[in-house]
């Protein structure tokens, strides 16, 4: 099982969970497993079946944009981080 970190803005779609354990040998398979467990997430972070561009995805500390994208391999002890930009600062 690998672990997906859920960003704060998406935790209402995981019942408040900050991490979800998933199976899958690639990022795409792991996300499929995640969306199977929490279907509301799929609509929030995908468009036409593709992961939205405003979500950065890291396997451990590496951005999958600079690896194999959603085909990036995921090992059993790996952590996948989903990271949309945050806006807040001043107000």
């Amino acid at each position, binding site marked *: 099982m690998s672990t997906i970190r859920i960003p*704060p803005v998406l935790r209402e779609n995981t019942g408040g969970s900050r991490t979800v354990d998933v199976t899958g040998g690639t990022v795409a398979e792991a996300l499929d497993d995640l969306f199977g467990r929490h279907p509301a997430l799929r609509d929030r972070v995908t468009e036409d079946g593709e992961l939205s561009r405003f979500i950065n995805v890291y396997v451990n*500390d590496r951005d999958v944009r600079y690896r194999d994208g959603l085909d990036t391999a995921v090992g059993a002890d790996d952590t996948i*981080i989903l990271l*949309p930009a945050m*806006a*807040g*600062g*001043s107000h």
Partner: protein
Amino acid sequence: MTTEIREVSAAEAVALARDGYHVIDVREPSEWNAGHVDGATLLPLNDVPSRIGDVAPDKAAPLLLHCAVGGRSGRAAAKLVELGYTNVVSMKAPLGHWKEQGGPWEEPRQLLTPAQQRRYSRQTLIPEIGQEGQRKLLDAKVLLIGAGALGSPSALYLSASGIGTIGLVDDDVVEESNLQRQVLHGVDRLGMRKVDSGELTIRGLNPETVVVKHAERLNADNVERLIADYDVIVDGTDNFDTRYILNDAAVKLRKPIVHGSIYRWDGQITTFVPFEGPCYRCMYPVQPPEELAPACSVAGVLGVLPGVIGMLQSNEVFKLVLGVGETLAGRLLMFDAMGTTFDEVRIWRDPACPACGDASPHAAPIQQPAQPVAV
């Protein structure tokens, strides 16, 4: 085994320095401040083992050590030979002879006034800062975008510790709901402009700090004028439009930005150094829809969170101004207050970035390989 240290006269030392020997002064800072060899590096005897690696990474480099008369430099030279340095020379002569032989000399400069020496003494004691570093801080100009949650801790600590000029960009007035986290302001300031309240607080902490008030909202028309005179920008804004506008102008004018953002229990921080590391657009090329990125006024924020993130931003400012240490350029640090955890991911310069990528009109000739590189 005893090691032979090569000792030279002042005349020979002056000749060696002209031939390119790296001159290292192993005296104490107080002696250095009373005048020193021009072009020399200060490395007090006791700091030699711990800092020689930074001062002279190449163990074959030609090094010329001196002190006041030749005793301490002889001991330092022996230490360096023990550490594997192969080309070490010690000047065995009073330093006055160096001057008589026409060696380059820098007369003492008064870097800090006596009052400044007292105020900043705990900082100037740190070897990486010293009086010269404190002078850099006093000469530095730092712009805080937002005198609110993230701007508050930066304004307090940057002024207290001697950043000479602090610019505040904010067009808001102090409201009651600000006070839970915006510690630059207080109940007696309700209704006052944040730039005025911020100036009052800073004056109380450090009357010497120059406060420049910009009571306006940063936008595409004023951004270049606002940031042009500053050395470092601290981004504590509250919306994506402003962050992208600021990013693009900072890339164009080559100003480093220390980025912070907060949401409920979570914060993010990184440092963008144009063309040396990624910029905001490299990291977030596309902004999320509004419902996924609410401001604090909508989503709420833990009072101490901007304190933690703002202090980390101030720490980055110090290193950028002093030119020491490792900044967060190329790394995004994430703080989770609920779990008290820090996580870090690497962020990359994107060659296709519209702001700082290969096609950027502001880029100097690209010296980097085509692949993304971390810093």
